[in-house]
């Protein structure tokens, strides 16, 4: 098998918001040959098929987040539409001088910083001084959620739904149930309505929350677990069990399983990178270093799932670390201490302390919870040493980020046990 071998200075895998921002920043900073590889025919990542607004700029900008984390109940508010955002990000990267190659898939590794690719022009083996992984995240499909029942057509994730409607103009059904109530679920509702599909209900297994904003014309069933899908060739219904034990069948020919994101981590794993058990993305420190020297990671691969501008901000921020590597001034990878969370917390990012106590962006960590926690207290400890206590003045809500100050980082013993973040009394 003949592969063309090449060398570049920086190789970026994935041309979503994160990869494109990294490419733009690095090319503009004179990082040499910066190449971005994208397996889709068009660059831009997920925003390509998010027709609603809310990308970049406006209220979704880098400013401090309000109590409700992401803007209101959906992504929309200010900013531009996804496709426009994607086009702008692509243009910025190309303008800065990054080489963007679409239709090229990184299929595996041939060395610590050498990847193998497949594209219409043939097979390549590309070695880079620095590799930046920006492969994004996907929603768990029905099978991974172990939803029993028959296997009819009409079962979607939001990603597939948006592409079917917005990129291919496909017919998706007449009556739909949306499973999930995070912002992406509302994006799914919008897409369904744009396609002329009646949305029967939105369902979530979470308990009913106080002050939940109800949307007119959209019944929200809380405390409802999907117990089966029915139908032979086409979906005929979604079977639910309510928290009080009652079961219901919602008649519909389409169901959209939203949220429940998992990083697209195949390459990271195949490259032998240590993964974080919480995020399931590569374990990384505040400088976006992974366990493999010279391999960096940014965007939703690290923490499924944050907003596009968060991914883009990380893309820009990684440039500093990559430039250090290119100029030989990189800090050696010392044994960073893993940061681990206890239930009901789901994950923390970054999840490794840097060797020199670097602070994460904005001086704070991002966390997610599995359960709603009204005004929670957090305890940060290392072994039996308490490092930090903090109280949140607002509820922590599943599906939305909240933050933990990073000022305790310099109290971490670089040779001590992992650092734990807990919610005492839960």
């Amino acid at each position, binding site marked *: *098998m*003949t*592969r063309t071998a090449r060398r570049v200075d920086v190789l970026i895998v994935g041309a979503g918001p994160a990869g494109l921002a990294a490419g733009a920043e690095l090319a503009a900073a004179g990082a040499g040959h910066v190449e971005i590889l994208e*397996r889709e025919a068009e660059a831009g990542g997920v925003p390509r098929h998010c027709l609603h607004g809310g990308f970049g700029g406006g209220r979704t900008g880098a400013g401090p987040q309000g109590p409700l984390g992401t803007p209101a109940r959906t992504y929309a508010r200010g900013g531009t539409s996804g496709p426009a955002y994607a086009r702008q990000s692509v243009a910025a990267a190309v303008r800065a001088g990054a080489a963007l190659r679409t*239709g090229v*898939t990184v*299929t595996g590794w041939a060395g610590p910083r050498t990847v193998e690719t*497949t*594209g*219409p*022009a*043939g*097979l390549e083996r590309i070695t880079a001084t620095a590799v930046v992984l920006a492969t994004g995240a*996907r*929603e*768990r*499909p*029905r*099978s*991974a959620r*172990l939803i*029993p*029942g*028959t*296997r009819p*057509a009409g079962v*979607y*994730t939001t*990603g*597939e739904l948006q*592409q*079917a409607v917005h*990129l*291919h103009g*496909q017919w998706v059904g007449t009556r739909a149930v949306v499973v999930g109530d995070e912002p992406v679920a509302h994006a799914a509702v919008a897409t369904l309505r744009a396609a002329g599909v009646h949305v029967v209900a939105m369902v979530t297994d979470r308990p009913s929350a106080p002050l939940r904003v109800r949307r007119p014309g959209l019944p929200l069933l809380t405390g409802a677990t999907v*117990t*089966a899908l029915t139908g*032979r060739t086409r979906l005929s219904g979604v079977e639910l069990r309510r928290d009080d034990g009652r079961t219901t069948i919602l008649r519909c020919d389409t169901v959209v399983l939203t949220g429940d994101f*998992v990083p697209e981590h*195949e390459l990271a*794993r*195949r490259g032998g990178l240590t993964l974080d058990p919480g995020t399931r993305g590569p374990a990384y420190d505040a400088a976006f270093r992974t366990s493999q020297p010279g391999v960096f990671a940014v965007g939703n691969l690290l923490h499924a799932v944050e907003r596009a501008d968060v991914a883009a901000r990380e893309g820009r921020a990684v440039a500093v670390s990559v430039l250090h590597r290119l100029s030989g001034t990189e800090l050696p990878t010392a044994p960073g201490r893993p940061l681990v969370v206890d239930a009901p917390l789901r994950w923390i990012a970054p999840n490794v302390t840097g060797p020199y106590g670097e602070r994460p962006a904005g001086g704070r960590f991002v966390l997610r919870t599995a359960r709603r926690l009204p005004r929670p207290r957090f305890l940060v400890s290392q072994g039996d040493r308490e490092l930090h206590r903090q109280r949140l003045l607002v509820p922590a809500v599943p599906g939305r980020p909240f933050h933990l100050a990073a000022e305790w980082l310099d109290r971490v013993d670089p040779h001590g046990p992992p650092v734990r973040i807990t919610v005492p009394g839960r």
Partner: protein
Amino acid sequence: MTVTVTTAGPLPTGDGPGSTDGPGDGTYDVTVVGAGVVGAAIARELAGHRLRTALVEASDDVGNGTSKANTAILHTGFDAVPGSLEGRLVREGHELLAAYAARTGIPVERVGALLVAWDDEQLATLPGLLAKAARNGYHAARLIGAQELREREPHLGPGALGALEVPDESIICPWTTPLAFATQAVRAGVHLHLNCRVRGIAGDAGGHTLSTSRGPLRTRYLVNAAGLYADEVDRLLGHEEFTVTPRRGQLIVFDKLARGLVDHILLPVPTAAGKGVLVAPTVFGNVLLGPTSEDLDDRTATGSTAEGLHLLREKGRRIVPALLDEEVTAVYAGLRAGTGQEDYRIRDHPGRRYVTVGGIRSTGLTASMAIARHVTGLLAGIGLDLGDRHDLPELTMPNLGEAFPRPYLRADLIARDPAYGTLVCHCEHVTLGEIRDAFSATLPPHSPDGLRRRTRARGGRCQGFYCGAAVRALFEGGRA
């Protein structure tokens, strides 16, 4: 070569490549009902003779019944009931299919099986199983101790005491196999009629008139390979010999990233309740956990259940604990055609120009080619003049197996046609070239599922998050 594959409209007559002894009035010499792996194998075997043969199938594709949903193991038959027909046909079928797979490119990997004993009682059973293997003519099995077992399968859960090693148990592609049989059969002149359900059968001295959902069909000889419905087809001829009881097997397919956890087919020590739950690699590079074993009376109940999945996860946790942390790619279920007898129900009916091929329970994929030979012999025995045997045209199937170079890794193919370098389904590395080829193949797909079984497109971990809409667009375009 004229290929006759029909999917709609009235059935054409049986004027195939001229039979020597037929009445020449459009009657088929032989009609095989059911294009599962067994029916397709029989049609292929008959295609090697100068006969006008029809293969009729109720659904829109071959291999669309039980044959698409099994554990995909090419069994040695080491544990068969000695002296049974099934035992003999599995043994012969293993040899025949392994050789055929090597010739045609059906993916097979000889990974070997380990029958793992988890307690003293099971450990004590192993020597008996070794002796049984020998009685079945299989001599390569051997006992291995706990330490060697651990070396061979480092991710095995704690407490495994020893194992019986069966080095020739293999994994095979369940989708390419019936497709290869049927493709070769129709290329050699067999008529394949899809969407054609047999609803009634009238017999006379000259043969049978089948009434089907697409009109009547005349045939001199009839083979019933209708799988779960073999008893019903039998009854259409007035035979009341057995009733099929579907026995459901639910399975969980784990992600490719789990493949490194398992090197062999890990079999449980069989009990009275059946063969039990296994963990096995697949030729697609995934790991299978299953199947359950549930007697039902609904022959369409191929859904999964919360209890079934729970049970599998409990069993899996014991066998390879780390498996449970991996992402699940797919969940499916297949129905075995149980008949209350620990053997196949293959029977000729001399006065009736008819052979029943029923009760092909949990080994039909392995035994398919041997069953086909056996059935062809039975047909000859009840008066069908087979004439000379001739070789079938050679066949090469597209490779779906991970252990052999797939198109996306082949610089030669891509240089000739860039479509083989254009990936459409990312999780499974399926290229535009392969999808296009599927539509121009002798047996093109008629559903997205059919396309998946020919290419793996959309069958991976994301189940369509990335490629679903694009694959559907290609499917709709490819059919247009």
